[in-house]
């Protein structure tokens, strides 16, 4: 599973993307992220799966593209 880090989250994780071995729900992914990067969960962000924003109950499959999206600040 590929995971993309945007905005301030790329600074916290020190990378813009990585591949991790994971299956489970978004809630479970957040726990996993908390272990990997304890500072990430201090930030506000949404999560997308294959470019669509999903909620905590959504199940992730191998091969999905996950992205961590801080509040958008374009324009």
């Amino acid at each position: 599973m590929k995971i993309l880090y945007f905005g301030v989250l790329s600074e916290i994780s020190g990378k813009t993307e990585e591949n991790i071995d994971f299956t489970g729900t978004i809630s479970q992914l957040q726990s996993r992220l908390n272990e990997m990067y304890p500072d990430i969960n201090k930030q506000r962000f949404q999560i997308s799966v294959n470019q669509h924003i999903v909620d905590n109950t959504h199940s992730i499959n191998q091969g999905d593209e996950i992205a961590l999206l801080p509040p958008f600040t374009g324009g």
Partner: protein
Amino acid sequence: MKTTTHLIDGPIPSRLISSEIEKHTSKTNIGAHAIFLGQVRADLIGENKVSGIEYSAYEEMIAITVQEIKDSLFAKYDDLICMHIFHSTGMVKVGENSLFVLVSSRHRKHAFRAIEDCVEQIKEKLPVWKKEIFQDGSHKWQNK
């Protein structure tokens, strides 16, 4: 009503505005164009002056988001004929433009409504992030 998603590397070139307008000469049902340009301000944050903004974007998600914005605008404003969005990625210095939106309609009312609606939706939904770069070299990710 095709989706043309444009990320521009660096500032919006001013000639792009002219060339986009020229492309609409053959659309003789258009009576009004409304344009929005976002320019980078030399804001003072504490004692630090902004020298530019570095934009990053989630490219693969942008096409989907732009299509959603388009669908919502064309559903609301039946006088609308076309719309185009261009957003910068990478570094845009103070005084340069980072966002260019063009909407065209038969009569002016819907152009005015659609341009504002479109820019508000871009601010809310487009997966783009700005990092303010200060004159002393430090930076700050903008937070809403």
